[in-house]
């Protein structure tokens, strides 16, 4: 490994703040999108289930 030690690796030749600030935000934003996608899907599915329940109730009253 060209860095010699993990300490050197994290220091990034003195640019650690900038390099990890850039990569950190990228990872954070992608993780946020992943969570949002899962939430949206779960919401869409529960909406369909709710729709179905109200329909069944309406039919059984008839």
């Amino acid at each position, binding site marked *: 490994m060209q860095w010699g030690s993990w300490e050197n690796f994290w220091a990034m030749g003195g*640019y650690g703040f900038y390099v990890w600030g*850039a990569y950190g935000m990228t990872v954070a*934003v992608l993780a946020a999108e992943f969570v949002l996608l899962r939430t949206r899907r779960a919401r869409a599915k529960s909406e*369909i289930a709710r729709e179905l329940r109200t329909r069944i109730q309406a039919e059984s009253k008839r």
Partner: protein
Amino acid sequence: MNAPRSSLFRFASPQVFYPLAGKLIPWFAVAAAALAAWGVYLGFFVAPTDATQGDSYRIIYIHVASAWMSMFLYVIMAFWAAIGIAFNTRLSSMMASAIAPTGALMTFIALWTGAFWGRPTWGAYWVWDARLTSELILLFLYLGFIALQAAIDDARRADRAGAIIAIVGVINVPIIYFSVKWWNTLHQGASVSLTKAPTMATTMLTGMLVMALAFWMYSIAASLARVRSIILEREKRTDWVRELSDKGAL
């Protein structure tokens, strides 16, 4: 409603596309993860420290990849939006809506990583340079598209209104791309072009291209995942969605 059986247009039916997209997502997601791991390995452990910029240049691997994606995704979004209103294909418009948030995200990443690269190399997080400003306008175009669609209840009317922003905004993409040629910008010119030899070391270039491919795969996986939710939201009253829901196969 039965989908016509014999042509590619079959896939323009949300009912046919929904399960297909579901099958494709894991492949794109795995490809994205594998390529990203390879790209990070090349970028941090194979590529050497830059002679003039030191290790700050390592931001390039995500900066260029996200900036490319921000422009590609906009063009693809506008393309599907245009097809959606020209041929009245609902799925095309849904695809445009599905791409927009991922495009906005890529634009944000390009701006953020650019700021974190600009500070050590130029001495400023932000300058009103033609490249940076046109990329910021791209972010506003994405956000405008999303906000406009969110403000209109009727899905097809929202599709048409969004398509107008998307199509008109395409003009901004060549402006971003050529801004470094047309104006005197602080931002450097293109490091990679089809006609000239690249102005960077091979290992750096390979790392950058691998990372760009990873971002492509990620964007496809995310857009497909989102379009599946959009299909469910819009088709929740249809028989095929009910049938899938009854079978527990949504």
